[in-house]
């Protein structure tokens, strides 16, 4: 093959590779809000928070460092430990229940049922309501003097006791009930979308193989829906870590500190106690938790795949 060397030498020398920074300039300009948000607000805010967690800032942030004092105090505070325990209990249960209930509902909805739209709307509408509203309604329903307990008692079963919001030992389940009411609709939606994405042939294959429906779900379909479960898990998990409004609206952390959660601890110490350093230390611990959950996921989700 003869190469017309003259072309490549002559013109190749002329045409310079344009600056990398100017290519796709518009997309870079368009991404400025995102970059700014990511860097200034989220990254900057996080670093700022971590930095000030090593200070003894009170009402206003001040750079007077005290080492890890705030953390030592944090981990020796009974209330923080209660918050962590509550978060763990609530988190694990709410993950289990919302995934299970969400999946069950989605599986039921996937049975080619009638009134699918109606049912879906019913399951989803609480998601439209704020936690404040959710908290209020459930506080009302669970109120022993007016709510379920009173109603059951008035029907004759006078020893019936169901007042989760006023019993330190089970108050977190009272919050769980409301949280599930509000959130499982979305989980159901995600699961339903996942179920609808399963190859129809898999169902047929399992029927031909004579595998009962529930086994197909457990051994074949659920494992296949792993990506959906992961996405859902991350969404639920982030909500769990952030839980605040609901607790405040339902119990204000009570009775006592029995239904306290980390976000409330952070808020209380930053603003009520006017001890920003302590609040920041607690936030940092929360951020750490979030990072442990999210970073591996984000890596899998966005780091691995590339597209040209």
């Amino acid at each position, binding site marked *: 093959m003869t190469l017309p060397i003259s072309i490549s030498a002559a013109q190749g020398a002329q045409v310079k590779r344009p600056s990398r920074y100017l290519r796709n300039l518009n997309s870079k300009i368009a991404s400025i809000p995102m970059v700014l948000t990511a860097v200034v607000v989220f990254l900057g805010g996080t670093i700022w928070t971590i930095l000030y967690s090593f200070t003894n800032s009170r*009402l206003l942030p001040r750079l007077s460092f005290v080492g890890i004092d705030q953390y030592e105090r944090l981990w020796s505070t*009974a209330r923080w430990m209660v918050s962590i325990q509550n978060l763990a209990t609530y988190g694990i249960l709410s993950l289990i229940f919302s995934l299970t209930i969400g999946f069950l509902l989605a599986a039921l909805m996937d049975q080619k049922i009638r009134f699918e739209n109606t049912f879906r709307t019913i399951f989803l509408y609480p998601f439209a309501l704020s936690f404040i509203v959710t908290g209020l309604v459930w506080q009302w329903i669970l109120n022993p003097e007016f709510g379920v307990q009173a109603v059951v008692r008035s029907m004759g079963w006078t020893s019936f006791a169901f007042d989760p919001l006023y019993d330190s030992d089970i108050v977190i389940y009272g919050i769980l009930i409301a949280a599930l009411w509000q959130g499982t609709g979305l989980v159901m939606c995600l699961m339903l979308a996942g179920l609808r994405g399963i190859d129809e042939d898999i169902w047929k294959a399992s029927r031909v193989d004579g595998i009962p429906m529930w086994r197909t779900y457990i051994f074949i379909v659920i494992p296949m829906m792993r990506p959906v479960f992961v996405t859902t898990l991350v969404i639920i998990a982030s909500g769990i870590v952030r839980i605040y409004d609901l607790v405040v609206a339902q119990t204000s*952390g009570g009775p006592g*500190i029995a239904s306290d959660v980390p976000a409330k601890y952070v808020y209380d110490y930053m603003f009520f*106690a*006017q*001890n920003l350093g302590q609040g920041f230390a607690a936030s940092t611990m929360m951020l750490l938790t979030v990072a442990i959950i999210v970073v591996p996921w984000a890596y899998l989700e966005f780091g691995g795949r590339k597209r040209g």
Partner: protein
Amino acid sequence: AQATDLEVTHWWTSGGEAAAVGEFAKAFNATGNKWVDGAIAGSGGTARPIMISRITGGDPMGATQFNHGRQAEELVQEGLMRDFTDLAQQQKWAEIVKPTSLLKSCTFEGKIYCVPINIHSWQWLWLSNEAFTKVGVAVPKNWDEFVAAAPALQKAGLVPLAIGGQPWQVNNLFSVLVISIGGKDLYQKVYADKDAAVAGGPEIAKIFKAADDARRMSKGSNVQDWNQATNMVITGKAGGQIMGDWAQGEFQLAGKKAGVDYSCLPGLGLNEVLTTGGDAIYFPLLEDEAKSKAQEVLASTLLDPKTQVAFNLKKGSLPVRGDVDLEAANDCMRKGLDILAKGNVTTSTDQLISQDTQKQLEDLMAQFFASPSMTPEAAQKRFAEVIASAD
């Protein structure tokens, strides 16, 4: 002066409180300016962060409520608050404000930054006469009688002691027990000197015993807000409540008569010493000339004798000036005024300990009162720890 809108933020949203604020607004509007009400519901805990955010965020309101004490300390240090020293000197606040400790908490490095507007004392036991009559027990004269009468109330299905779920209620209840049962010295040693040895000692142990009683007596009061608890007393569902003098406003609003429908025992009928906490209005530094002028007008209005009377009557608190005449004051208020006049007063915990320590104590007390399984001994041990590290 030109009419100017001045936004005043506060957390006075219960019935009595709102009525009292109305008096301020009325008086201020009468000066030709306009009171823009910035009420934030849900108690100081909810409201303060919003106020502070707005001040530090560069969108300050015209004036804002804080409690007497150290809540605004750092805002002042940062130079975000307006210095009223000149006005104070001109109007001789130092002479008219009584007790003087109130003005002291407004003072920072010799300058005055706030206007005290009322005195609140915590050490009151409110009793429902109706409840006691119903169970056929004489209305108690002091805490001990009250404790003794509790079983009778309980048997009748009543809650002896109404306590709301908010942590600050139980925390202050405890401090009331300290000063009323333990006395002023004990109170000083614990809250002012932060003496951990005393906090862990036998005297405080006694207080914790009393708190244990209170805890037992409060079983069944499934309410959150303080005024819901008060309402239980008003309606005779509960025997009594330990609450500050602002509870009075609720009784009044409900048309109840002191001494007839309800009784009040300052110092729980044991030690008649009152703390002088209360509210103050702070003025953020504003750029707008007209508004700054209006701030001065408001400051003067707040301290005006007539406003003081009108406000405090509705609020159920005591005026900050000794020279006003509270003819309309009722039975309970008079008791308070008398104690005040005798000088049986001391500083409130808000002024003695930081919000941080306050919060830790609240957490401890909230936990103690909500969990019957927590022994007084265990609680006292933690109490001593908090006091040891208090500031």
